[in-house]
């Protein structure tokens, strides 16, 4: 049992270290054989996921955990005689571990899927290195308690994901990769400038210590605005969404599924900044309403513009990418309503908490079904060689598994009962209705339009007579089916037991976001 205890003590770093070390071992393992490398990469992600489960059990039982680097023991937060933490520190609470689960489950599905999906290509050793680095980038952003560390992982994520987007230079993939990198680079630089603004005033980089000392001066407000815009841009919300469809369209399908979780890692950063870092000061200055309404407006715009732009698309991945924008709007709406009533405990109890539950539950639901849908889109591309829906048709005759997974994903994203998308959307509809009925109605209309556009995809790709071009089409290789199965299984479990999912993993996440005093207390002590 000593081994389990050791793993549990060092879990926050092990989650990150396993994929990081394996990333650079991958080219060596590739020397043995392709199969060995594939299994090695998948095992690395699975091992990291197992460590995350171990850590999650501990966090749900004993509360948030801090892990300090360079101290004699990882528990020493404040070295003797210091008022402020000076070391890099990871602080893992319910929200962090929730996001870690999302990233790792999707990465697991995507890595199994890519065994066969990339078999036409060469240079796969570096491809898998980048894939693992992308996982590291996401995990690092989600685990860290240090704001500069977050910036570093943000950049690792940007670099590896845009390199993967353009990894196979064919057609227009370099264009998508460059646009994504350019926007991420400028967003990242502004995030760095905002971090400098905070550091120059308070002399700390630790988020908890910053949160306890922020005065909400004009410079702090500027930093908040810059940080918010940077992360909103990276999570792909209207009107900064334009690069999202471009990058999602051209990247390999399994990378697109991971780009969705990458955007959600940035969504996490946005929530962390607005709830934890500035939570105390925006409540004291009574500006939580303004910040919340900014998120709500961005969310509603994303929902509406995203879904209406998706309807006329005839590129299957571009259509789904616009839906990713639209679904991000639901999360921003749900959590934004929670933020807008954060300082008002009666409204918070009445509907704010449920709205946040809905928004956060939607994050994991979205990652699973949108990941699944992108993987099915990749399967269509694999068989037909085109992303153009106008050229597809009758694939359901030859690809029953893909069609089945597509139905699961499409029903879930449209919020059709009894799928998991319905459960989280219901939470959002009912709670947001009490905040403002109009927003709730818009959310429902958007859901209907989502169903409409997925009916279009299903009809034009899978239904209809067998076309002569695809007479020789057949089901995709087994590993691609297994990869889709991983995500579909999670969707089915969440569909059948939404209450279990909400109580076990979503509620600790919501509590963690709202309990910024506890986050600060873990590091600085006192209140």
């Amino acid at each position, binding site marked *: 049992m000593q081994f389990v205890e050791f793993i549990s003590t060092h879990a926050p770093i092990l989650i990150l270290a396993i994929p990081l070390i394996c990333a650079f071992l991958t080219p060596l393992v590739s020397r043995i054989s392709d199969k060995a490398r594939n299994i090695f990469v998948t095992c690395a992600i699975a091992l990291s996921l197992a460590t995350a489960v171990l850590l999650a059990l501990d966090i749900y039982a004993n509360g948030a955990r801090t892990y300090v680097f360079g101290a004699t023991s990882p528990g020493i937060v404040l070295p003797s005689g210091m008022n402020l933490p000076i070391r890099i520190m990871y602080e893992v609470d319910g929200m962090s571990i929730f996001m870690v689960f999302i990233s790792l489950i999707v990465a697991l599905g995507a890595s199994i899927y890519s065994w066969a999906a990339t078999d036409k290509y060469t240079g796969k050793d570096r491809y898998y290195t980048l894939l693992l680095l992308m996982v590291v980038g996401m995990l690092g952003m989600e685990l860290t308690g240090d704001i*500069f560390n977050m910036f*570093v992982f943000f*950049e690792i994520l*940007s*670099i590896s994901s*845009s*390199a993967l987007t*353009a990894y196979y*230079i064919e*057609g*227009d993939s*370099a*264009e*998508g*990769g*460059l*646009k994504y*990198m*350019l926007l991420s*680079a*400028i967003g*990242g*630089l502004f995030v*760095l*400038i905002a971090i*400098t603004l905070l*550091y*120059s005033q308070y002399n700390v*980089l630790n988020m908890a210590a910053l949160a306890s000392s922020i005065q909400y001066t004009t410079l702090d407000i500027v930093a908040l605005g810059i940080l918010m815009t940077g992360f909103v841009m990276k999570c792909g919300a209207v009107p900064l969404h334009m690069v999202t*469809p*471009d990058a999602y*369209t*051209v990247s390999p399908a399994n990378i697109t599924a991971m780009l969705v979780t990458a955007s959600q890692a940035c969504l996490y950063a946005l929530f962390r900044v607005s709830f934890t870092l500035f939570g105390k000061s925006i409540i004291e200055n009574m500006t939580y309403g303004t910040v919340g309404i900014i998120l709500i407006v961005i969310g509603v715009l994303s929902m509406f513009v995203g879904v209406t732009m998706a309807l006329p*698309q005839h590129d299957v991945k*571009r259509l789904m990418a616009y839906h990713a924008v639209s679904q991000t709007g639901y999360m921003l709406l749900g959590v934004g309503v929670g933020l807008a009533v954060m300082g008002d405990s009666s409204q918070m109890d009445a509907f704010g908490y449920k709205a946040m539950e809905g928004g956060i539950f939607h994050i994991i639901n979205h990652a699973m079904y949108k990941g699944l849908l992108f993987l099915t889109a990749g399967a269509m591309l694999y068989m037909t060689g085109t992303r153009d829906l106008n050229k597809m048709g009758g694939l359901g005759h030859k690809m029953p598994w893909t069609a089945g997974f597509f139905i699961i994903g499409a029903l879930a994203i449209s919020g059709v009962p009894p799928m998991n998308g319905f459960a989280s959307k219901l939470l959002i509809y009912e709670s947001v209705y009490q905040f403002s009925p109009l927003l709730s109605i818009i959310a429902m209309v958007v859901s209907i339009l989502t169903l409409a556009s997925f009916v279009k995809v299903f009809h034009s790709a899978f239904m209809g007579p067998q076309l002569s071009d695809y007479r020789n089409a057949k089901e995709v290789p087994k590993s691609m089916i297994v990869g889709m199965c991983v995500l579909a299984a999670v969707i089915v479990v969440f569909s059948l037991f939404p209450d279990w999912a909400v109580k076990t993993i979503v509620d600790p996440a919501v509590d963690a976001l709202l309990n910024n005093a506890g986050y600060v207390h873990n590091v600085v002590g006192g209140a």
Partner: protein
Amino acid sequence: MNAETILELIYAYTPFACVAALIILGLYCCIVRRNIIKIILGVSVIESGANLFLIAHGYRTGSVAPIYTLSPSDTNPLNYALPIPQALTLTSIVIGVAVAALMLSLAIHIYRKYGTLDVRKITKLKG
């Protein structure tokens, strides 16, 4: 306010004026220029601005490099330059190099595919 304090103020704020100028110049370059290489240069200029911003916070007139073993033995501990911004700047420079290298290599591929570096013509993905 005498001339000396004004001069001191100018000294103190010159780095920040440079930072603002660099960032605005970089943004101007990114938005107005049409050549992708120039846009990437603009990103690098913004990055220099951000780095200068970081490093300017850690420096005080007359301070010494924060290397304990190499500094004169009679150095007042308060006279060291703040080491953390320097570490942060180093990290940021390394990231900037990686970003610039990646973007330039993508620009090469775009030139091979499209035969141009004009952003107005690199719009296959739109709508």
